[in-house]
């Protein structure tokens, strides 16, 4: 197990290094001179050149990259140009926002998907099954910006149940915190439920067809005990993998939902960095998101190993 984890960490570091290189050079070659963008249409050519030098953009690419990489090893992601603040502190401030929504969204999506997925597999072709399949279609088809707007107008403006925008930290008020993330989390959950439900349903159907299910039935075990204990356990691997992927995606920031609900999360920060060409900030964010995704994937793989003993033994080389 430990050997496996170490191997994964090693390969993760290689991935990070490759990603850092790609990000850095892609950002370097996109058109537009950051100095010109900052100084606008009124500056002289000399002023633009001076600022370019002050920003260190006149050095050869490889030198800029190595300098940046060395700082990165010291966990120094540089200073954002537009905010004049350390990139790390900007990211640290955005993490709770994005993570809270991601966790709650996945919680809602997982519960809904498990509930309807299992039911619809067990009662295949029943009304419940048709209902669940409609949820799948709708969840995937409805764009989040639209449902977000509908929620704002209905639950925020009309019923006044939830605040329309902004984030309340958990430290200042727990109720306020829950209220501020409820709508965005539900909007995100709607988007993720469809996919997850489909996977739960098909894995469950698959699992129900296995020979050991017949064995359990012949043994005369309680119907629901069979479903929950034997069928579900066998059917969990694919959904857990998907949940991990979905969570990793949400944890990397959700631009649309964060914009609509004015939430100061990772997604908004990425968008601002792109729009205003804050390259240092953008590089830092890409590294952060990559690390998060790699970490979550690793965690999910470890989780699957514990759920499914077959994988464990294969990885162990037994």
């Amino acid at each position: 197990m430990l050997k496996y984890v170490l191997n994964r960490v090693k390969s993760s570091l290689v991935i990070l290094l490759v990603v850092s290189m790609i990000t850095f050079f892609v950002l370097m070659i996109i058109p537009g001179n950051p100095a010109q963008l900052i100084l606008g249409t009124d500056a002289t050519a000399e002023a633009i050149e001076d600022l370019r030098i002050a920003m260190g953009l006149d050095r050869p690419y490889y030198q800029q990259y190595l300098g940046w990489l060395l700082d990165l090893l010291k966990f120094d992601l540089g200073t954002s140009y537009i905010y004049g603040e350390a990139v790390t502190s900007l990211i640290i401030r955005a993490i709770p926002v994005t993570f809270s929504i991601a966790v709650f969204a996945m919680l809602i999506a997982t519960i809904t998907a498990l509930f309807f997925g299992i039911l619809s597999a067990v009662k295949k072709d029943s009304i419940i099954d048709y209902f669940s399949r409609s949820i799948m279609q709708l969840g995937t088809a409805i764009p989040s910006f639209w449902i977000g707007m509908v929620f704002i107008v209905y639950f925020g403006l009309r019923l006044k149940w939830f605040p329309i925008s902004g984030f309340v930290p958990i430290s200042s008020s727990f109720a306020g915190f829950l209220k501020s993330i409820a709508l965005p989390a539900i909007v995100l959950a709607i988007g993720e439920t469809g996919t997850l439900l489909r996977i739960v349903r098909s894995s469950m159907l698959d699992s129900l067809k296995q020979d050991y299910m017949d064995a359990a039935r012949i043994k005369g075990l309680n119907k629901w005990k069979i479903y929950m204990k034997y069928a579900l356990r066998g059917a969990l691997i694919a959904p857990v993998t998907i949940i991990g992927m979905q969570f990793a995606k949400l944890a990397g920031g959700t631009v649309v939902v964060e914009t609509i609900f004015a939430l100061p999360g990772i997604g908004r920060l990425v968008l601002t960095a792109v729009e205003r060409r804050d390259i240092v900030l953008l590089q830092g964010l890409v590294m952060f998101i990559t690390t998060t995704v790699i970490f979550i994937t690793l965690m999910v793989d470890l989780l699957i190993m514990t759920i499914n003993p077959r994988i464990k033994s294969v990885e162990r080389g037994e």
Partner: protein
Amino acid sequence: MKKFKTILVLAVVLMILSVTACANQENTPNETADIKTNLVMGYTTEPEGLDPHRTAAASTFTVTNNIYDTLVGVAPDWELIPRLAKDWTLSEDGMEITFDLRDDVSFHNGRKMTAKDVEYSFNRLKDAESPRARDYANIIKIEVLNDNTIKFITETLDVELLKNFAYPWAAVVPEEAQADLKTKPVGTGAFTLKEWVPQQHLTLQRNENYYSDKAKLETVKLVLIPDATSMMASFQLGDLDIVPLTGDQVTMVENKSEYKVISEPMNAVQIMSLNTKNPILANEKVRQAMAMAINKDEVIDASMFGYGDKIGSHLPPTSPDYFDTNDVIEYNPEKAKELLKEAGYENGFDVRLSLPKNYQLHVDAGQVIADQLSKIGINAKIEIIEWGTWLSDVYGAKNFDMTVVGHTGRLDAYAFLSRYKSTSNDYISLTTGEVDELLERALQELDGDKRKEIYKDIQVILAEKLPAIYLQTPRTMLALQKNVDGMQIFPLDYYDFKEVYFTE
């Protein structure tokens, strides 16, 4: 598995309970019966740091104008008024200007402001790192005569010189704080920065030691809400006291007793610049034909929902030097076709139209224009590009055929028009030099009426020669809760919260 299930069920129950519990809570009014002194305004673009000498971003000046002061101020009617300077005198030859400064001004850090600080600030504004250095290059000497008197000496006569002291970037800053002004601004203004949380809000706090009448509001909180619909919803809920308004939203708040709308033409022009290096566009008849084919009312409807004023030349209607040139070339697609035929392009031609993606106003206008041009056979191929690319390719490298963009924020006609000088090296300079001499004369003409005549001539030449097709001056619009008063729209792109107050 069983344990897991129990935890899961518990979590769900807990979550549902807590969410419904908070949903049922009554919204407690956040103010007492007294008149409010804490204003909340929505904004869509964050400042690019708070150092007025080190950025060209309008979003910075919107805020910093409340933190820093300039020597001269500007009233909503464009009149220049005293601010840090009580009074000023211009030498007979117009080459020297002497400011008499107030002696009761302190920086937010408690230190008294003197003429030395003004000298330091203008040198900082003129140095290489400043985006505005070019505008102040004509000032070749700054003399501190005593603590409260300072003299600026120019190299050549510039009759518009005084206006350069009213722009929000010409702010006075203390040398000891200069390194951190970007995040820790220290000025002399009516407000200090209380807090700036990137991506969330920026709060200004009343300066209790302000030299003049103190601000009526205690705090002003600018809340970042990037999405216009969410912003409007928050305003309608009463969470925001003031919001910037887009054309499509006006009907939602107009003629409603609980809201007020204030609106003024922006000090800006939206133009479609034409690159005369393109051999087809170099043909004056072609440019005139294009101008005739463009229905500006339609452009204004599509881009500003009608909240804009048509223009025929490169000055906004609010400018004191504005001359109405809308009649020089009138909308007439039939005549446009004839002109195109005369120019030898009976069957039209292909041309690129570059539109800056970040500015919906220009993208919308460009799409309508492309459609209108197609009716006289001109095939405008739209290229939507990033603002960074626009700056480097279109503005910098002049690699474009046509582009729709805005030019903003100056108090004098010269600053607006000087880009047409053949030597300006600007992306739309009139390389033929037709306005060079007029511009030169305008800057030297001390008589205001005569100067106005010269600017009139320049505007007419531009309206005929069309180095760009002049589209509109869009309006700035703000929606206010009915209990907010004292908010005004200025010719410069900033807010001034000093006079704003609640009536109830």
